[in-house]
């Protein structure tokens, strides 16, 4: 386990975390610490990461991991205790007013202005940010159209469902063309359809090159939307990489499940020989299928692998053939971000 931790450790990775495109990272956080008043532990405890322009970064972790606090600091709503946090080179703690021009946040809860219509929510937001009148009117119309809100533009937000309010808040956030869009738990509490809509919007934003930082405690969401995922727990960033790279770094988490129709061969013997194939960590027998259609003598086994699963199919098949048995089914079990989380923290995400 410590080996995994070391492999995934984020500290050394920092310097190579951002490819040099001449512009530097849009978001840069170094050794960030936050301790709330009267709290005994740090809510954010020495977090460092950087976000490239146009990248979608997902911060994944359970409630209380420090994700929202990190976003709060970057959006100037939370005062940091230590470290630095910059957006487009502006230190958010030193010059929060300038930083607010560069960021936009879609919060967990609906905080739309209930005294104003949807269109007015967008217009006033832009006015706060100094967008000239003609431009904000045009932009509001375009965004309302694009987000499918045009026909409801004059409705008040209290008539909106959670998913619709979410959509309005994303549109509002884009009114002042922020450098980074922060989405705090964008799909928590949404129904599946609204969730898929938000996912589509984020993919859309990524396609258009908007830099997005999103927090989530849903590993599917992180894997689905983020170019890179940062795994947080107890205020620390435990790992940060692409979902593929994170799961690749998990020995014994990639599995190959095989079904073999035995033809006089001893199951025990086959299991033993599978276990000594180079790259197989261990073999576990799985209950064979039962019922009238099940083959009379079948072995089902799960192989825990040290490396990549596809490369192991050939040696396994070869072994089975040598035993004059028949390979009837092969399933590759890819490790999930959940497995990464378990490997890093020793417990499940939910």
């Amino acid at each position, binding site marked *: 386990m410590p080996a995994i931790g070391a492999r995934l450790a984020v500290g050394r990775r920092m310097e190579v975390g951002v490819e040099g495109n001449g512009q530097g990272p849009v978001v840069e956080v170094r050794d960030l610490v936050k301790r*709330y008043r009267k709290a005994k532990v740090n809510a954010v405890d020495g977090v460092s990461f950087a976000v490239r322009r146009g990248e979608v970064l997902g911060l994944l972790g359970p409630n209380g991991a420090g994700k929202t606090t990190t976003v*709060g600091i970057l*959006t*100037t*709503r*939370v*005062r940091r205790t230590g470290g630095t946090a910059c957006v487009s080179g502006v230190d958010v703690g030193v010059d*929060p*007013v*300038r930083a*607010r*021009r560069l*960021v*936009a*946040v879609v*919060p967990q*809860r609906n*905080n*739309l*202005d*209930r*005294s*104003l219509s949807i269109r007015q*929510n967008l217009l*006033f*937001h*832009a*006015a*706060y*940010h*100094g*967008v*000239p009148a003609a*431009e904000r009117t*045009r*932009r509001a119309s*375009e*965004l309302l159209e*694009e987000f499918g809100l045009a026909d409801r533009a004059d409705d008040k937000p209290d008539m909106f469902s959670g998913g619709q309010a979410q959509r309005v808040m994303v549109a*509002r956030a*884009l*009114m*002042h*063309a922020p450098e980074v869009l922060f989405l705090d738990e964008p799909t928590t509490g949404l129904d599946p359809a609204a969730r898929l809509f938000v996912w589509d919007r984020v993919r*859309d*934003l990524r*396609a*258009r*090159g*908007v830099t997005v930082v999103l927090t989530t405690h849903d590993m599917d969401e992180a894997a689905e939307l983020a170019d890179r995922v940062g795994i947080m727990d107890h205020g620390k960033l435990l790992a940060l990489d692409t979902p593929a790279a994170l799961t690749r770094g998990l020995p014994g988490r990639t599995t190959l499940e095989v079904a073999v129709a035995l033809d006089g061969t001893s199951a025990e013997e086959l299991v033993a020989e599978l276990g000594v194939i180079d790259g197989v960590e261990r073999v576990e027998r799985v209950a064979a299928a039962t019922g009238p259609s099940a083959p009379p003598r079948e072995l089902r086994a799960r192989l825990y692998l040290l490396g990549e699963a596809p490369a192991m199919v050939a040696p396994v098949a070869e072994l089975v053939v040598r035993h004059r048995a028949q390979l009837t089914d092969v399933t590759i079990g890819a490790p999930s971000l959940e497995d990464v989380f378990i490997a890093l923290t020793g417990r499940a995400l939910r």
Partner: protein
Amino acid sequence: MSTTTSPVTTPVRRRPAGGPARAFLAVLWRDLYVTGRELPVFLAQVVLQPLFLLFVFGKVLADLGFTQPGYTRVLFPGIVALTAVVTGLQSTAFPLVIDFSFTKEIEDRLLAPLPVGLVAVEKVVFASMRALLAALVMLPIGVWVLGSIPWPASGIPLFVTVLVLGCLVGSCLGMIMGTAVPPNRINVMFALVLTPLLFTGASQYPWASLDNLRWFQVVTALNPMTYVSEGMRAALVPDVPHIRPWVSVLVLVATIVVSLAVGIRLFLRRAVD
């Protein structure tokens, strides 16, 4: 819907100068716009209480002969003072409690490009404007209910000064209430603060006349509203014994400075973790 024309990624043209000042005005404009749209409701809400006080104490009791002739002259300036202070107080306290604890609507303004302290100042400015409007509406209402109101031309500069200070005092105290009181205590708090405030502010009696009721005179001296009421009397009915105007003005200015400083501190504590 082509990518090139999409507003999602088009950079926005911003006004180059006057950032925070412009943001401040936009935030103020939002509040004025919302109030303007529901002006009749707003006026009914803030004017009804002073109207009834004026009607019952100034008209009904006077007509029934329970009050001395001339009491309405004492009462009217006090009611204007009460309207200014209480409207100011309610216009900051209520919205702040609701915003910070429930709707979170204020968040979008806290993320506007202006110092968070200026958002607090905007709340005070806006609440004072509401209070000013409510107090000024009491002038025609006074004429309507009482038949006439004391309105000496020589007192108008002092009247305006005390009125503006009274609106600010109420708004600043409301800011403290709205940000200091935990949301679950707010009902109790309003009952415990508002009612004593209404009746210890020398609104319905001149402060000097309390000489025989010494302890109550001391209590009323602690209520900033007393100095608004007394300042109003100094302006509108100078023949009624009153606290010297410069004392009233000085106390009010000092109260505004202190309570605004405290209010902004508390506001910042709520707005930024």
